[in-house]
Every structure is written in C-alpha cells, then in structure tokens.
C-alpha cells in the first residue's frame, strides 16, 4: 500500500509538471508568434508614408493606410495599440478598439509604453504594443493570474 501511495504521489507530481510544461511551452510559442507578427506589421506599416512629404525629405506616415495594413495583419487575432512618431512632430496613438489620440512633440521624446518601459525616440518610429487575453494555463493556481501575453515592437527609421 505504501508503495502504491508513493507511486501515485510521484505520478500526480509528474502529471502536474507535464501539464505546466505543455502550457508554458505553448505560451512561449504564442509569444514568439506574436513577436514575429507585430515585427512584420510595424515593418510593413512604416512603408505607408506620404510620398510628397518624402520628396521634401520628411517621413510622414499615412495613418489610414498604415492602420489598414496593421488591421489586415492582426486580423482580430490580438488587441493592439499603435504609436506613431514622424516628422510631422505630432504623436498619434491608435487602438484596435478605434480609439485615437494625438499630441504635439519634439525629438528626442521620452516614450513610456504600457508595461512601463521607457525609451528615447529620436526620429520617425512605429511602435506596436499587442496583447492576447485568454486562459493559457490548466492549473487553477495560474489560470486567473497569467492570463495575458504582451509583446511590443518598435520600428525605427534611421536612414532616409
């Protein structure tokens, strides 16, 4: 009986550990997938700039075209907030829920993202913060705590 109870205890510990590992590796893969997706979304969206302004040596992103591209790539798979900095010196923020805000800025500009990370923006940049919410863990102790995945990416234009 003692052996059986010990065996059962080891079995339960191994089962919990395998469950956690399966969930954790899935979260890790989802994070990586999200990273690649928003990297591509930012790199592609930054190409949608105003050609006339570019002719004058300025990079001014066309918000509606850029947001259409980001929306197309995101395809409602995750929520996102886009921060646009360019030579118009007006910072714009667009959310996947349709919220938009703008403010006048000057470079260098100290930007703090939703997770509290601060970076100094010195030129045109396209920043995407993305998050996915859901129950990623089977274990009840983690189910309600670790229920969101966040990644952010910044595409900075360094050359003209």
């Amino acid at each position, binding site marked *: 009986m003692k*052996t059986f109870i010990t*065996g059962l205890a080891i079995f339960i510990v*191994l089962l919990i550990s395998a469950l956690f*590992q399966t969930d954790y590796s899935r979260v890790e893969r989802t994070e990586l997938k999200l990273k690649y997706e928003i990297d591509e979304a930012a790199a592609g969206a930054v190409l949608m700039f105003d050609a006339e302004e570019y002719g004058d040596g300025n990079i001014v992103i*066309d918000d509606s075209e850029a947001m259409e591209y980001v929306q197309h790539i995101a395809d409602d798979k995750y929520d996102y907030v886009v921060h646009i900095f360019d030579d118009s010196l007006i910072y714009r923020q667009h959310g996947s829920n349709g919220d938009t805000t703008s403010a006048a800025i000057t470079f260098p500009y100290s930007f703090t993202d939703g997770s509290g990370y601060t970076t100094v923006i010195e030129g045109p940049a396209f920043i995407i913060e993305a998050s996915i919410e859901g129950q990623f863990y089977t274990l009840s102790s983690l189910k309600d705590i670790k229920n969101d995945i966040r990644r952010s990416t910044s595409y900075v234009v360094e050359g003209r």
Partner: protein
Amino acid sequence: MKDFIVLLAILPILLALILNHGLINKNSMDEQDVREYVYSAVQIAKQDGYFTDANIDALKAKIAERMNLDEDEIVIIADSVPKYRVNEFNESELIHYRIEVPVKKVVAGNRLFNISDVENQKIIVIDNEVASERLAP
C-alpha cells in the same frame, strides 16, 4: 513480491511521463526554430518581392535537416510572382505564404495511452502575408 508487481504496473506510466517532458521541450524548440527559419526566408522574400525557388529550396532544406524530415513532407505554398512596394495598403501587392511542417510524435509512449501513431501527429502551420519591399521597375 507485491511491491514489485505494483512497481511493474506503475513504472511504464511514470517513465512515459518523464519521457514526455523531453518531448514537449523538443517539439517546442523545433517549432521555434522553424518559425525563425521562416522569418529569415520572409525577410529575403520581402527584398525579392516574392519567394524565389532558391529561397524555397533553402528553407525546405533547413527545415528538413532540423526536423529530420524528407523535403517532400514539407509543404510551402508561396507567391511566385513579384509584388512591389506601393507605399499604400494594397492587398494584391502583399506576399502570401503558407508553410506546413509535420511533427511526427506529439506524445511519448502514445500506445500506452491508447493513442495510435496516426493520431499522434500534428502539423505546424505558418500562414501569413507581408508587404513587399521590392521597388517597382
């Protein structure tokens, strides 16, 4: 003797669970590497405007070597007509790609859990679009 019999009954399940730890890690790392290879190939495709045959062959060879598969088992469906950078959102100028890579073993000791070899497989699917950076002629 009784203990030995109990041990014999429990040991295969315990061993299978221990083996699964390794397999979960292996499959996860394999998938991460496949995504990294695809990401690199997509960067080349963005410059070329499409997936060239050389790019597709190199990607297949890399994935096949990493995943220990035949190249024929990897499916790559990608645009083979050049797309151009248009500085506006135009769906027809996006490069579309779909890559399917089979994973042949998902659970270790599958027969112990009554899972057949056919059911014990999955396919990694990467299906996406990306803006071309190739300048129009």
